[in-house]
């Protein structure tokens, strides 16, 4: 394992220190892995988070119009209930706190328990669960779809709703509607290496790639041979479009996300390909992003997220926002 780190046990505090030093609008809650805005606002506060290893998520999306705080656990491990509760307390307003949680047992339990404890302290707290990984069939026989890169667009919609002064129930409802409208699928060209493990979580042959993998290096749904960018884009979009029931005439936002080690050259080629494919399907891409939003450490590959939008949701995506890792859609 070759990584620009000092010690696997210190990657999380060191990178968070780096982030807040580079982001004058952010600060670190002392003795914790909770990052929050320098100055808090009135109204509903948004808290996100999860295991580390997804940088720039989640702390990179803190700022006006987006999140109020993010709680980071160890690499690929949900933060503890106490850590989440600390974050909630730090940003709570009388309007309450909405927790944006990805669908993993650990995150659900820790954020869920923390929300319960917060309510017991008199802080209105609600939870939404993001489950955008359309690679998987959801059902009673499993823990449901995972939350992956589309989470970033949920942050944006909820952040704009909160900034617009909506109450907790209304912000929650908008976030849940955005989640229902969202689907994502990823392709990995290489596995990722957890610093503490020191070696890749799985191995792929010279020409093998993995479709529908998770953002923690969990196995995907299918291992296939390497194919062209156009072909892979088609496979990812076919699945998301089918699972989310998208049809010609629908309007969507498209997020092309680097899983960690993908060069800009390749992201741009995939973005071009995805735009052409959606156009051919008669699906209108109202906004598009291509960049590094939510990663699996150093995995090579990308994910494509589609969120169905109407004028109201588009306005949320377009609303002014400023955070270290946020860029306006085009």
């Amino acid at each position, binding site marked *: 394992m070759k990584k620009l780190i000092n010690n696997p046990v210190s990657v999380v505090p060191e990178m968070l220190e780096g982030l807040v030093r580079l982001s004058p609008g952010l600060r670190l809650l002392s003795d914790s892995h909770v990052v929050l805005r320098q100055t808090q606002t009135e109204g509903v506060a948004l808290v996100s988070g999860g*295991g580390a290893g997804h940088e720039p998520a989640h702390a990179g999306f803190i700022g006006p119009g987006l999140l109020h705080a993010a709680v980071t*656990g*160890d690499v*690929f*491990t*949900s*933060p*503890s*209930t*106490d*850590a989440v509760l600390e974050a909630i307390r730090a940003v709570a307003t009388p309007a309450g706190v909405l927790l944006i949680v990805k669908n*993993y*047992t*650990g995150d659900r*339990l*820790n954020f869920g*328990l923390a929300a319960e404890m917060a309510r017991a302290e008199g802080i209105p707290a609600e939870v939404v669960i993001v489950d955008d990984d359309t690679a*998987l069939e959801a059902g*009673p*026989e*499993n*823990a449901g779809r*995972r939350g992956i890169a589309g989470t970033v667009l949920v942050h944006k919609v909820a952040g704009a709703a909160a900034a617009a002064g909506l109450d907790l129930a209304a912000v929650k409802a908008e976030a849940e509607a955005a989640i229902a409208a969202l689907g994502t699928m990823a392709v990995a060209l290489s596995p990722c290496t*957890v610093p*503490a*493990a020191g070696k890749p*979580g799985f191995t792929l042959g010279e020409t093998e790639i993995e479709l529908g993998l*998770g953002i*923690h*290096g*969990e*196995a995907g749904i299918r291992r296939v041979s390497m194919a062209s960018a156009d072909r892979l884009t088609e496979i990812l979009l076919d699945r998301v479009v089918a699972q989310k029931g998208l049809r010609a005439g629908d309007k969507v936002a498209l997020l092309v996300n680097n899983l960690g080690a993908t060069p800009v050259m390749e992201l741009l080629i995939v973005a071009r390909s995805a735009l052409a494919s959606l156009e051919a399907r008669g699906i209108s891409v109202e906004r598009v992003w291509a960049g590094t939003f939510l990663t699996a450490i150093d995995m090579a590959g990308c994910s494509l997220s589609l969120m169905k939008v109407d004028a109201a949701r588009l306005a949320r995506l377009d609303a002014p926002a400023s955070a270290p890792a946020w860029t306006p859609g085009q």
Partner: protein
Amino acid sequence: MFDLADIIVREQGKLSEIDGQTGDGDHGVNMGKGFRIAGERLRALPSFTLPEGLALLGDTLLSDIGGSMGPLYGTFFTDMSEVLDGKDSLDAADFSAMLAAGLAAVQGLGEAKPGDKTLVDVIVPASQAFNAAVAEGKSFTEALEALQTAAAAGLEATRDMVAKVGRASRLGERSRGTLDAGAASCDMILETLAAGLIKQLAT
């Protein structure tokens, strides 16, 4: 209690390896961290009762380790400790109530049913075996030995299950054929707790 902390710390490599087969390979890391910290805190105390020890362990898991096991084992130990509250020594009835409270905590939080390929598949047969032995008039020690056997069998039975909850459930049929990591740590925990009590009862 020290035995408990030590065995989890010692076996963390094995636990992560099992988790790696169908999960993300960090079960040992998570558990090892929590039990190491709890062990240090316990060693710093002049003395403590079993319920106090369990409470400290539960607190540590809840506040310091995160992941899915932090809350699940955290409330498991916390709720077991509450049942015993104030007791200095415990009898078979206390032990049975303690297991019931632990199981209720885990199921209340994680909603896993027997057969879902989790630690529940160790706790349920272990406490059933214990209660059955007591009902048959066996001694506390004999009942604890029955629990140990049943825990190990429960773990072994997870091998042929398909995961229905947690990370491994996304693999569907592909999760069959390997042990469950949480069940493996739970077997260690129950067997070690029982062994400690058996030793204590013998003196």
